[in-house]
């Protein structure tokens, strides 16, 4: 994804050779994630926010909530919107419109995994829980991701950051003052003292498997990504259901390999979700102490 790494052919064969013997440049095995750290509540103006550092990759995610009318034809649903921006701080190539293509690519992959199709049935959040007054008022959640620094595996990093931002998110309590009749417009007051958390148990994480040579690896660095032939990103939730799939890269994949990759992604995701949950609660308790 990142151009101009300037790897020599010796470095390239070192990367490929290391992956072949299950010992990568930074000492990890093929299916090991890098250590990561999460900070929450870093943007006080947002309802929820988190910063994730995964090796040299650094992303911020924020959730902002706005009240609006439910989508036409679906009075029992709230709305979600997901957007990602790549800041030029990550790489000088992202200057001007340079980051737009990658931003769009990442946004689309996240939307595919979190929005759950046109009906919203498989969405990352129970959309019905966002309804305030049926048919009239619902929450619209804006997920914004910002890539500050990039050292590979941006998609997985963004999905983790968004999960953390959502568990940090509190929706202010809405008190309906009038408009409970079907004809009237709703009048409401926001109670900025009381917040209700959003249920994140359904929220999936994305695990990207990057194929380098004959093998595939988890959580590739920028150097490893530059050597990839294909990559499959699988969104998996806590129950182990697949919530979204994206295949990237120029080379075709054997269907049997693809199924194998998905099962590996599923296995990796379960340990990953446990460690994410632990990191999030550690970050939250750190924040409460302050």
């Amino acid at each position, binding site marked *: 994804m990142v151009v101009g790494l300037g790897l020599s052919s010796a470095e390239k064969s070192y990367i490929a050779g290391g992956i072949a013997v299950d010992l990568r440049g930074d000492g990890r095995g093929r299916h090991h994630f890098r250590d990561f750290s999460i900070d929450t509540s870093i*943007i*006080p103006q947002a309802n929820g926010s988190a910063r994730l550092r995964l090796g040299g990759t650094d992303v911020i995610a*924020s959730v902002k909530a706005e009240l609006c009318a439910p989508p036409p034809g679906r009075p029992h649903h709230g709305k979600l919107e997901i*957007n990602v921006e790549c800041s030029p701080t990550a790489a000088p190539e992202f*200057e001007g419109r340079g980051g737009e293509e990658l931003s769009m690519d990442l946004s689309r992959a996240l939307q595919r995994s979190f929005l759950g199709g046109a009906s919203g049935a498989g969405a990352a959040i129970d959309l019905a829980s966002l309804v305030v007054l049926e048919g009239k008022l619902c929450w619209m959640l*804006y997920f914004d991701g*910002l890539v500050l*620094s990039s050292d590979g595996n941006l998609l997985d990093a963004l999905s983790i950051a968004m999960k953390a931002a959502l568990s940090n998110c509190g929706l202010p309590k809405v008190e309906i003052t009038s408009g409970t009749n079907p004809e009237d417009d709703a009048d409401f007051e926001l109670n900025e003292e009381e917040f209700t958390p959003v249920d994140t148990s359904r929220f999936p994480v994305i695990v990207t498997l990057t194929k380098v040579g004959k093998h595939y690896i988890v959580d590739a660095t920028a150097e490893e990504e530059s050597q990839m032939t294909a990559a499959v990103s699988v969104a998996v939730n806590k129950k182990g259901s697949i919530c979204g799939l994206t295949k990237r890269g120029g080379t075709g994949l054997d269907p049997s390999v693809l199924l194998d990759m998905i099962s590996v992604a599923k296995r990796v995701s379960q340990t990953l979700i446990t460690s994410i949950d632990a990191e999030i609660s550690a970050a939250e308790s750190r924040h409460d102490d302050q």
Partner: protein
Amino acid sequence: MDFISPEGLRLDGRRPFELRQLHAEIGVLDNADGSATFEMGNTKVIAVVYGPREVQNRSQQQLDHALVRCEYSMATFSTGDRRRRGKGDRRGTELSLVIRQTMEAAILTNLLPRSQIDIFVQVLQADGGTRACCINAAALALADAGIPMRDLVASCSAGYLNSTPLLDLNYLEDSGGGPDLTVALFSKLDKVTLLQMDAKVPLDVFEKVMNLASEGAKAVTQFLREILMENTKKLAFAKEPLKV
């Protein structure tokens, strides 16, 4: 609207001549040549420097001095109400230019001919005074990248509301309708390098506000120096054990 209470305190509890809480960190991103975050109260900016490096676009190459470039961007979540700012809106372009000119004046560009220095400023949170905050963050990032500078440049804003000069306006005060004056200083050389103001004021008021902003910028310089010194000490300490 009253911006100053009868007790003489501002909306956020500061006195008129008081700066917001300053916070800075150097070397926040690993893969850049220089990086820094700078916070003034709730305004938070991250600045990153790439370079000096080879000029990317050959036609822009300067034979006798370095090419300095700057891009300013605002995160979608940085403002109170969420809004998408397309790249290259007028305000952003103007700010990029202002930051570039201010930093260009500080950098000893003649020492780095045929090279390019990129400064990227990303606003993470906007609560008034982004202009000043961006310049302070960029100055720290340039120092972190080890780029030779004439003097440390520091910036601060000031305004005039309820017949009182106020230092370092926040967003509410900034939208209060009074003048908003931003000044950037080389404190050792005692030279003003940036001066912007957007409203009509009598000359004597201007002088008061200008003096206040300059004092603020000097205080910021002091703070920047402390942060740089701390960082240098940390680096020196890290280097020490290597000596056998």
